[in-house]
């Protein structure tokens, strides 16, 4: 048992005192932070509304008792400067909304019995003017709709491509898995294939230490290292994300950044287990390979599989059947997305934990077998 710790300690010292190693482990996170922050700031600048802007509010009726009421309230509040644009044709109005001729369009519909029954509000989520006026105007309409005859139906006219921010939000779990994989790959190939290539592992193998202990010590140290690097990347994403999100407020990007303790715990479990799974798989590959180069080459098919499974997890996240969360990698992405969306199913989380622990245990067993196989360790 103590030998596992001795080996682990040495491996950790190796990783955390080597400047080059540290750079390769933590640079991606730092770069990511910079890129995301810059992107957020740039977008933020792009998406802010100019001082003294006059909002154009489109409406489908000239003058009605209720609509006049709404506009007079808005005028009296003095919060914003606006002008009313009347457009009776809805299709034309939508075109105007997209081209920015109006910033918001209110469709007023009279009920059959002559009573006002609905306000429908259209806005364009890629236009900062539109989102800003929507944010001011919609609550006003809903507060007036306290009388049951009002209802506000917000409609977003932005097309799917416009919602690129939403895609970035969805990408987060996928990015995370990619970071985890690349940091695991850097350390595992260096620590195992590198040692084989340089002949230093043989020095360890002539000591009486059990092969399984060597394997465990390495996996533990590699997991800790990869985890540290992944956590740095993750913190970079999380801290730079508000910048990115702020600039896109009201665009329908649903990322609950104010996660609770339970969500953080789930997220942590997902990340740790994913890192350990990747470490074990990449350690096996690195043990079979004769050099770092060979190990990196062997790791590419695995990386492709991880990417494909990851993208499919991204595309069709199906929480309806938690048993899908028995599939490795897919379960990592699905659980992370669910945490961010605030809709994690406990059964799905359990499936993820059980499946990953089983695979990690199996992997460590295989690794120990490989370490005691002379053809693998000393084959020419």
């Amino acid at each position, binding site marked *: 048992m103590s030998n596992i710790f001795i080996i682990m300690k040495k491996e950790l010292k190796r990783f955390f005192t080597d400047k080059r190693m540290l750079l390769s482990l933590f640079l991606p996170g730092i770069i990511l932070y910079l890129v995301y922050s810059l992107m957020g700031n740039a977008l933020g600048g792009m998406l802010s509304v100019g001082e003294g802007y006059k909002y154009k509010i489109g409406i489908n009726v000239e003058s009605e008792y209720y609509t006049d009421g709404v506009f007079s309230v808005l005028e009296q509040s003095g919060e914003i400067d606006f002008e009313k644009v009347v457009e009776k044709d809805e299709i034309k109005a939508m075109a105007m909304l997209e081209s920015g001729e109006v910033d918001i369009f209110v469709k007023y519909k009279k009920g059959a019995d002559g009573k006002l029954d609905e306000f429908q509000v259209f806005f364009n989520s890629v236009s900062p003017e539109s989102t800003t006026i929507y944010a001011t105007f919609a609550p006003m309409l809903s507060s007036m709709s306290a009388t049951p005859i009002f209802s506000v139906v917000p409609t977003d006219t932005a097309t799917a491509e416009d919602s690129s921010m939403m895609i970035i939000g969805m990408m987060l779990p996928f990015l995370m898995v990619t970071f985890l994989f690349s940091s695991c790959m850097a350390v595992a190939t260096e620590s195992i294939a590198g040692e084989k290539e340089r002949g230093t592992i*043989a*020095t*360890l193998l002539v000591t*009486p230490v059990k092969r399984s202990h060597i394997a465990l010590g390495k996996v533990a140290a590699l997991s800790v290292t990869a985890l540290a690097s992944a956590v740095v990347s993750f913190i970079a994403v999380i801290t730079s994300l508000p910048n990115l999100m702020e600039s896109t407020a009201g665009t329908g990007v649903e990322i609950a950044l104010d996660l609770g303790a339970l969500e953080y715990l789930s997220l942590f479990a997902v990340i740790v287990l994913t890192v350990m799974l990747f470490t074990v798989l990449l350690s096996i590959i690195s043990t079979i390979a004769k050099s770092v180069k060979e190990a990196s080459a062997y790791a590419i098919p695995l990386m492709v599989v991880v990417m494909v499974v990851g993208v499919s997890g991204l595309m069709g996240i199906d929480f309806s059947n938690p048993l899908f969360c028995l599939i490795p990698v897919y379960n990592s992405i699905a659980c992370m997305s669910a945490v961010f969306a605030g809709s994690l199913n406990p059964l799905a989380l359990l499936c993820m934990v059980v499946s990953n622990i089983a695979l990690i245990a199996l992997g460590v067993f295989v690794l120990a077998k490989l370490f005691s196989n002379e053809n693998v360790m000393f084959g020419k």
Partner: protein
Amino acid sequence: MENVLVVKNMVKTFKLSAKQQKIEKTNLKVKVAVNDLSFTVKKGEIYGLLGPNGAGKTTTLRMLATLIKPDSGDAEILGKSVVASPDEVRSRIGFLTSELKLEDFFTPNYLYDYFSALHGVDKAVAENRKRNLFRKFGIDKFAEVKIADLSTGMKQKVSLVISIVHDPDFIIFDEPTNGLDVITARTVTDFLLDLKSQGKTIIISTHIFSLVEKICDSVGIIINGKTVLSGDLKSVVGDSNLEDVFFELYKKEMGEDE
């Protein structure tokens, strides 16, 4: 005298890949590296395994160090079987070869402590041993220099010291003076004699006749994976010299093969 190493009918074959077959210029799928090898080493002696390139010396020593397993046969070192209890054998032997490298990133001091800990050596004992060995080999001045920055000779000395952190009674040394300058080579051979004077048993492999003549008590001549002669150096050589004896045997062995 008591036998501390008994090698009994050890056989080791390697499967050859197509690429290896080409390199070795053979159609055979398997290479018999060690072919029914037997010999014994007595306590407290230096035994020299002498043979030409490819004779199977390294393969034999690796089997003794339990890095690889014999296909059949066995060897007992200090009463422990290399096949049945490899972990116990490893804790009693020191194995040295230029193939065993030390990690460039660390210092001799750190690596000494690391391997001492892995061998379960008591801290105080290890500290004491380290001081003596480092002084003896002049490593003390380089104790905090990374292995990467040491000269080849100094690296070899550090390797040597680290392979005996647990003060083993049986030492296996593949090509002890290979690639060393005369001064470092002398340090190494002096050290082997020193270990012998402490009552340790040593087996070395070499193809250098003079080294055997200088330091060995017994010799085993190995050709094509077989011991063609093994015994006390004086009785093996007789009135002749080692080189002549060797070539006599070599001619006979190769003649038989063809």
